[in-house]
């Protein structure tokens, strides 16, 4: 079945033509301050008073076309500010609420209203906020551990100012009756894969339940970014989830640019888009190889790996690094692609990939293994706020490739309907073809290196005074939101800069953070546990992006 190719749907709520139009109906709830393009540039910001948070969140959750993209907190001592990021085709909306104020929430019963009861997509974020900031939703429901390991948590610094709180029930003990047992797997798993723990509840073959523990790789990236200049931080940001280095780096750089009120040169923005599509291509090839390995088709794996290696060499020829590290930076890009090399080498590599995909789709034993495996419904994807090929394979047309360079070169979103592994595979193949078209279009429009200089002390290209003269302007403290469509889904970043332009708070939300929560649902849909590696390959997430 061929995947559907849809143009970006103009799904506007009644009468809304801009984000302001989406937000206007909220004014009837009272107690809001709406700031046009807001303190958080890149998004419309709505300051919501604590007592209105529940009503506002309910209204937004019920607005068609709006999905929760992220929720996080920031330490603005003595208060903690809770922010929810909502995504719409027209743009992003950020609601800001101060908690722990004198007129704020009752902290004995909880810190803030039970948002995940209204928006199930917020549950993992509530757990993370509790670990880091010590405030919790007023449900009394057990929260899971997300980032901090049980045996070392007391030693680890938090992002918030409240003294460390041990999270409550860590993945509440399963009642396993006589027929099912819990099989602990990991964190050291099979060869060449990241460390990850599965608690697999099975009756022998079928997956009754599956929970994941990702804290073994928690490196505290957000904590480590504080106090760094944007350029210093960019080095660590692209290594938060290295397989999405371009996407996460772009989202972060865009957030910094929004906070400083600057924009990259248009040719640099197109360079970013070329790098992003190259990243998508090699990731989809790697996912194909992993699918073949999981299904035991060694010849298919070899074919996909040949394509993958060729694509990585194209990356090295075009941008000087197989995984495109060091290309995107705050203000623009550090290098232009070698357009001649790219035009020469890319078609052959993509052809290799296309033929491998075609051969796989004609191998019945392979296709049988993927069909009806790891099914997610559109309803599950919508409820959990999933992104990327995982969501698009259930029919949801979510894609963060809008604005910036995409104004001239719009993206055709590839979706499928079945929501199984085969659908995700088909979406990836469709997207690979679309990526080739986009790269050609951006190269034709012209790609160059270049950075808009950041009005930040000592952060010009060349570091402390090597290239351009050091900038003496001081940037006022600002906040900004940035986004990019990584191969595994929308990557978001939000930064708050201090008066010196250094990072006061950086929030990184790679695509993996949204999608791991859909993994157990996909595994539980009438699968046997040998299907788990196949489903994992079709999601193609990383543990590093979740644990950062």
């Amino acid at each position, binding site marked *: 079945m061929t995947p559907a190719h849809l143009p970006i749907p103009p799904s506007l709520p009644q009468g809304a033509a801009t984000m302001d139009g989406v937000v206007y109906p909220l004014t009837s709830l009272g107690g809001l301050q709406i700031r046009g393009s807001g303190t958080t540039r890149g998004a419309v910001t709505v300051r919501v008073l604590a007592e209105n948070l529940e009503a506002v969140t309910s209204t937004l959750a019920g607005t068609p076309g709006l999905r929760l993209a992220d929720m996080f907190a920031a330490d603005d001592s003595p208060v903690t500010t809770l922010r929810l990021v909502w995504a719409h085709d027209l743009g992003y909306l950020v609601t800001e609420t101060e908690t722990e104020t004198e007129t704020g929430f009752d902290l004995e019963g909880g810190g803030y209203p039970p948002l995940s009861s209204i928006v199930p997509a917020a549950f993992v974020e509530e757990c993370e906020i509790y670990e880091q900031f010590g405030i919790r939703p007023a449900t009394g429901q057990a929260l899971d551990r997300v980032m901090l390991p049980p045996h070392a948590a007391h030693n680890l610094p938090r992002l918030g100012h409240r003294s460390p709180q041990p999270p409550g029930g860590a993945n509440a003990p399963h009642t396993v009756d006589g027929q099912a047992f819990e099989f602990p797997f990991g964190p050291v798993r099979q060869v060449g894969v990241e460390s990850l723990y599965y608690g697999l509840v099975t009756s022998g073959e079928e997956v009754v339940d599956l929970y994941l523990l990702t804290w073994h790789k928690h490196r505290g990236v957000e904590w480590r970014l504080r106090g760094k200049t944007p350029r210093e931080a960019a080095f660590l940001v692209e290594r938060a989830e290295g397989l999405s280095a371009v996407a996460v780096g772009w989202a972060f750089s865009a957030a910094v640019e929004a906070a400083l009120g600057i924009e990259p040169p248009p040719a640099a923005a197109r360079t970013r888009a070329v790098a992003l599509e190259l990243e998508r291509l090699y990731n989809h090839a790697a996912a194909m190889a992993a699918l073949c390995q999981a299904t035991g088709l060694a010849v298919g794996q070899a074919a996909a790996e*040949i394509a993958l290696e060729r694509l990585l060499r194209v990356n090295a020829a075009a941008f000087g690094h197989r995984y495109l590290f060091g290309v995107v930076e705050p203000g623009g890009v550090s290098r232009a692609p070698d357009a001649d090399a790219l035009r020469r080498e890319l078609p052959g590599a993509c052809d290799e990939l296309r033929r491998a995909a075609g051969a796989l789709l004609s191998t019945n034993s392979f296709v049988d293994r993927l069909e009806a495996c790891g099914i997610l419904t559109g309803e599950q994807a919508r409820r959990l706020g999933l992104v990327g090929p995982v969501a698009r394979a259930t029919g949801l047309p979510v894609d963060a490739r809008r604005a910036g360079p995409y104004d001239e070169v719009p993206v055709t979103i590839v979706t499928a309907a079945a929501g199984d592994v085969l659908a995700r595979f088909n979406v990836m193949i469709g997207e690979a073809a679309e990526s080739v078209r986009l790269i050609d279009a951006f190269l034709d429009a012209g790609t160059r290196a270049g950075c808009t200089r950041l009005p930040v002390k000592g952060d010009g290209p060349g570091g402390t005074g090597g290239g351009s003269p050091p900038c003496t302007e001081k940037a006022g403290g600002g906040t900004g939101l940035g986004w990019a469509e990584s191969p595994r889904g929308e990557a978001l970043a939000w930064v708050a800069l201090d008066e010196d332009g250094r990072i006061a708070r950086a929030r990184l939300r790679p695509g993996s953070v949204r999608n791991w929560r859909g993994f157990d649902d996909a595994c539980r849909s009438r699968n046997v546990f040998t299907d788990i590696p196949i489903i994992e390959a079709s999601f193609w997430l990383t543990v590093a992006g979740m644990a950062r």
Partner: protein
Amino acid sequence: MPFWFARGLRRGVVTTHYPARPDRSAALLPTPPAFRPRQLTRAAADRLVAVCPSGALSRPDDALIFDVGRCTACGRCAEAAPDAVTPSGEFELASTARSALVKKIPIYGETR
């Protein structure tokens, strides 16, 4: 399966002969820097130390200490002092002694 077998034969062998023979694709790889001591002043060395995001450069006394093990070949030092820094072209860097990866680069640029 006969289809895959024939396909594989048609595709041919792509395997490298490395390490028996050099592999040309190595020329595409980013490599750690090599330094030019005569272009290196103490001020330039201090700028390089400040700009390295991975802690590979330090200057405890009158020489620049370069820890190849920490280098990510990001190129920021070359960008900061293009006269004094150039790609080394070396990617075969494995070492059984960690200390063999720490190199001392003299600073000869202070002539005036």
